[in-house]
């Protein structure tokens, strides 16, 4: 899931002040931001109270099913069109994908209420860790299911680096070195370690990614438009 965290409140206030907004509509997300406790119903109600205590009216709020789903978000904005018409701006408590989907679904100014930080594993309730960077060129088959691209702070494919000490990472000293973990797990599973992993193919992760299953082709660059 996409992990988000609350954005600097003064920046949100400055965004609204810059366009002279006196009232806002709040949009959350029923998926990731709800699980991350940053953009679910509870967080929207907290944000509502905070805006109101600081003199900004909240015309309404909605937590759609998935903020980044264009069709669903358009339905949400249609359903709340009366409240939206009253608002000078929309603040979205969802990831950057959600913010852009909302911005594509309304003519009102839209501002992010969160910062998107990583694709996270849910380790347990409220504990998230980054394990995958969506690099488009997976090496987990060779690295015993431990991603060096993401979990080695330097992203080295061939490690450990010269700072490893007593099996610990040089950069994040309280963590085990990713490369030592990979070697250990491969050995435990009786698997041979690949000699040298070749340089990554970054052309597999060119921005902006786009896939279209409808016309049977995958595109790596260029969006599909609206």
């Amino acid at each position: 899931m996409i992990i988000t965290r609350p954005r600097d409140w003064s920046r949100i206030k400055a965004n609204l002040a810059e366009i002279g907004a006196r009232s806002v509509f709040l949009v959350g997300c029923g998926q990731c931001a709800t699980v991350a406790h940053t953009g679910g119903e509870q967080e929207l109600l907290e944000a509502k109270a905070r805006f109101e205590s600081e003199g900004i009216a909240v015309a309404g709020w909605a937590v759609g099913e998935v903020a980044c789903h264009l069709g669903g978000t358009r339905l949400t904005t249609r359903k709340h069109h009366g409240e939206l018409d009253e608002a000078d701006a929309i603040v979205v408590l969802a990831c950057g994908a959600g913010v852009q989907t909302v911005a594509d679904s309304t003519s009102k100014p839209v501002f992010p209420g969160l910062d998107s930080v990583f694709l996270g594993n849910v380790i347990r309730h409220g504990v998230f860790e980054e394990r995958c960077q969506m690099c488009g060129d997976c090496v987990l088959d060779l690295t015993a299911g431990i991603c060096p691209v993401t979990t080695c702070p330097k992203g080295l494919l061939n490690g450990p680096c010269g700072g490893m000490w007593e099996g610990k990472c040089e950069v994040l000293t309280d963590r085990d070195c990713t490369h030592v973990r990979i070697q250990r797990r491969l050995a435990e599973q009786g698997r041979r370690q690949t000699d040298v992993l070749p340089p990554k193919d970054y052309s597999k992760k060119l921005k902006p990614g786009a896939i279209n299953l409808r016309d049977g082709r995958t595109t790596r660059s260029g969006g599909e438009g609206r």
Partner: protein
Amino acid sequence: MSKLAEALGRGEFVVTGEVSPPLGTDVTAMLASVATLGPSCHALNVTDNQGATLHMASLAAARLVLDAGHEPIFQQTCRDRNRLALQSDLLAAWAIGLENLLVVTGDDPRGGDHPEAKGVFDLDSTQLLEVVSGMNEGRDMIGRELTGKTGFFAGAAAFPEAEPYEAQIVRAKRKVAAGARFVQTQAVFDMDKLARASRDLRAEGASVIAGILLLKSPRVVDFINNKLAGLMVPTHIEQRVRKATDPVSEAIELAREQVAACREVCDGVHIMPLGLDSAVAEILR
């Protein structure tokens, strides 16, 4: 041909030193250091934004060492440049006469003076050594023929004292397989561990140059133990430095003993004088 390569080829016990390019354009202090260290050393490493802190480019500074009449070892880290920049700098280095090369991963930017910087690490040091080997054979990373090939005497870094030993020696051996002809180690304090790594790396065909750090004061010991992850001064050595009435002469004596011990197990020493440049000649005497 690289004098360092020649000396190692003859079986001579080599000495390398280290100079740091300035933060700025005034190279007076660097050249003074070169003049002091140069006569005692076969070659001088020229560091590349060491510790992820800003300095003049090692490419230019290494050429200044060459102009001063000494042989540089051009250090290249993978932290600050992508594969295009790394390759073009390698071509530049060879074209301006730099023959020795030390390829290292590089410290992470978050431990340096520009913690907001993006660490590049497009290639790691093993991969970069493979690139260098290709360039020495006249082709770039994508296999295109170069107009004029390189002939680098390439080296890598290793850390003989880091445990688990197996995890890091496997990688060091891969660096040798990728083209490292010599290996410079991080500071060594445990001669048995040095001997073990030296035996394993020599068996792969690389020369081993052991890192000797001048522990000139208890403050240096504290810095190493607290700030440099993975570089721990053993208690018995720490005590010698702490109890010494004259820490500098104790540090020199300690380094002399280490150099003598290294002569038995490896091919040379890399002296890191931490400012005590003038003591290097004495250590080697």
